[in-house]
C-alpha cells in the first residue's frame, strides 16, 4: 500500500468503500460535506447505493431500512444533523441492526458554527436517543486513525449488531495528512438469520422495536445490556504516551490529545515527569485503566474542546483519589500547546 496525502473526510469515505460499504444515505452539513461528495462521485460508478436524503431524519431511516435488509451501510453528518438522527438511532439500537455513523463534530449548541469541537461527547457516548443503549464510539486523532477506525467500525457493528460511531472533530475531517488506507476487501454475504430478504422457503422475519408487554421489553433490555457488558469487556481502546515513569498525567482524545502531547513533550523538556493518556473508545470508556492511572500519578489534567464532558467519566473512574483539573476550549476555538503547558505547570504546582 502507498502513503498518500488525504483529507480526513475523504479518507474516511474511501476507507468505508474499501471496507465494503454497500449503501450510503446522508445530507450535506459542514464540516462533513466532502465525505458525502466523495461518495456521490464514487458509489454510482461502483454500482453501490448513494442517496442524498431530504433530511438527516430521512437519511438515518433509510440507513435503518438498508441495514434491516442486511447491507453494509453508513451515514455521516455533523452535530446538528446527528441531533436530528437520534430517534432513528434509538430504533436501530433496539432492533439490533448493524450501522456505522460518522460525526464530524462542530460548534454548538444551536446552529453554533462550523469550527471543530468535541462537544457531542455526551450526545454520542451516553445514548443520545431515548431508552437504555450506548453506541460504540471511536475517536480518531489523525487522518490515518480515522481511516483505520472507519474500516474496523463495520466489523464491530456486525459483530455486535450495534451502532458504531466514528467521532472526529471538524479538524480531523478537514485537515490533510499522509495516510496509508486499508486494502479493499470482499464482504461475506452469507445469510445471518435476521436480515429481511423476502421469506423465500423460510419463515418470515420481523424487524421491530415494539414490545407491548413490559416483561418482554424487559427481556430485550436485559439482552441489550448483556451485549453492552461484552462490549465493555472486549472493545476498550486507548493509547499511552510517556506514562511509564510519569508522576502526572494529561487525559485527552482526538485533536485535543495531539495538542496536549506537544505540551507534554515541552513539559518533559522542562523536567516535569508527565505523560498522556488518550482514550480511543469513548464508549466503552477505559474506566479501569484510568482508575489504575489515578492510583499511580499525583494529579490529572483533562483537556477537551468542550466545557468538560469526558471529564465526568474521568471523575467517575478516578473517584476522589487525586486532584483533577480541567482545561477546555469551547465554541470551535482550538487549544494550542502554549495554552496547555501552563495548565500542566499549574497541576504540578
Amino acid at each position: 500500500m502507498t502513503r498518500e496525502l488525504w483529507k480526513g473526510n475523504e479518507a474516511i469515505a474511501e476507507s468505508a468503500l474499501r471496507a465494503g460499504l454497500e449503501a450510503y444515505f446522508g445530507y450535506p452539513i459542514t464540516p462533513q460535506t466532502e465525505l458525502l461528495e466523495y461518495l456521490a462521485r464514487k458509489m454510482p460508478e461502483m454500482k453501490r447505493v448513494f442517496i442524498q436524503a431530504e433530511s438527516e431524519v430521512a437519511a438515518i431511516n433509510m440507513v435503518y431500512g438498508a441495514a434491516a435488509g442486511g447491507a453494509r451501510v453508513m451515514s455521516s453528518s455533523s452535530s446538528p444533523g446527528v441531533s436530528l438522527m437520534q430517534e432513528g438511532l434509538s430504533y436501530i439500537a433496539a432492533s439490533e441492526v448493524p450501522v456505522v455513523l460518522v460525526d464530524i463534530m462542530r460548534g454548538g449548541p444551536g446552529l453554533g458554527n462550523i469550527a471543530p469541537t468535541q462537544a457531542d461527547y455526551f450526545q454520542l457516548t451516553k445514548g443520545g436517543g431515548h431508552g437504555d443503549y450506548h453506541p460504540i464510539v471511536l475517536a480518531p486523532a489523525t487522518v490515518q486513525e480515522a481511516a483505520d477506525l472507519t474500516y474496523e467500525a463495520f466489523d464491530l457493528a456486525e459483530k455486535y449488531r450495534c451502532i458504531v460511531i466514528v467521532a472526529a472533530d471538524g479538524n480531523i475531517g478537514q485537515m490533510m495528512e499522509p495516510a496509508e488506507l486499508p486494502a479493499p476487501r470482499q464482504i461475506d454475504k452469507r445469510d445471518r438469520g435476521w436480515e429481511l430478504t423476502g421469506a423465500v422457503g423460510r419463515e418470515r422475519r420481523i424487524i421491530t422495536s415494539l414490545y407491548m408487554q413490559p416483561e418482554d421489553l424487559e427481556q430485550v433490555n436485559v439482552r441489550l445490556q448483556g451485549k453492552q457488558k461484552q462490549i465493555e469487556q472486549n472493545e476498550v481502546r486507548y493509547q499511552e504516551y510517556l506514562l511509564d515513569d510519569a508522576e502526572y498525567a494529561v487525559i485527552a482524545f482526538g485533536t485535543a490529545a495531539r495538542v496536549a502531547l506537544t505540551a507534554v513533550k515541552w513539559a518533559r523538556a522542562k523536567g516535569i515527569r508527565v505523560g498522556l493518556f488518550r482514550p480511543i473508545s469513548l464508549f466503552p470508556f477505559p474506566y479501569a485503566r484510568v482508575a489504575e492511572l489515578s492510583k499511580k500519578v499525583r494529579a490529572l489534567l483533562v483537556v477537551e474542546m468542550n466545557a468538560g464532558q469526558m471529564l465526568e467519566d474521568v471523575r467517575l473512574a478516578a473517584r476522589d483519589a487525586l486532584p483533577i483539573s480541567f482545561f477546555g476550549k469551547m465554541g470551535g476555538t482550538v487549544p494550542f500547546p502554549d495554552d496547555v503547558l501552563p495548565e500542566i505547570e499549574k497541576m504540578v504546582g
Partner: protein
Amino acid sequence: MLAKNMQVVYKMPDALTDVVTHYCPGCTHGVIHRLIGEVIDELGIREKTIGVAPVGCSVFAYNYFDTDFAEAAHGRAPAMATGLKRVHPDRVVFTYHGDGDLAAIGTAEIIHAAARGENITVFFVNNAVYGMTGGQMAPTTLPGMTTTSSPRGRDVELQGFPLHMAEMLAQMPGASYIVRRSVHDPGHINQTRKAIKAALKVQLNQAGFSLVEILSNCPTNWGMSAMESMNFLKEQMVPFYPLGDYRIADAVKSLIVK
C-alpha cells in the same frame, strides 16, 4: 379434503397469518389487509415481499402479514422502505400507514420518496383521525369534525385546512400511479382491490412510485356504530376526498385492468 366436484372459492390468503387482529370491531383495516393479502397471493409474490408499517393503528401489521416485515418510526416508513428497496431492488417493498403518519409527521418523507420515483408501493389508510393515540385531530380531519383535540369541531381558521395527499402527490413527476379509493361498500372494496393490484404491478414492472389512498373508517374514535361510520365514510368523506385516478403515467397505463 374437499369432496369431489367441490372447489375452494374463498379462503384465508396465504399472505396473511391466521391470528386474531387487535383492530376494533367494525374497523376496515381488516378488509384492507385482506385485499392486500389476496393480491399478494394472486401475483405469487409472498416470498419476495417485504412490508414496512410505521407507528399508528397498523403498527402491528407485521403480526398479520406472512411476509418479511419491518416496523418503522412514526412517519419514516417511506425512508425505511427506500433503504430496503435500494439494497433489494428485486424484492417487492410496500408501506402501510395512516394519515397522521403520512400527511403530518412524515410529509417530507412521502413527498421525497415520490419525487425520487422510488420503486415502492404505498397503501395510505385515511381515516381522518389519529386512531392509535385515541382520536386526536389528523391533517385529514374534515372541517367541523369533532376530535379529542378539536373538541369544538375543526376550525380551519385556527387549525388549518385538511391535506389532499393524492392530489398533492399527483403533481410529482416521479410518481407513476396515484389513486384514491374507498372501502364503504362491496363495489368500492372491489375497486380498491383492483387498485392495490395495479399499484403492485407498477412496482413489479420497475415503473416507479405507486400509492393507493384508501378512505377508511374509525368507529371507535368517531364515536359511531360500524354502520354509522360506513355512512359517514360514504356521505362525508367521499365528497370531501373525491375518489379517482390522480396520476397514471403513460408508461403504466397498459398495466391497469379496469
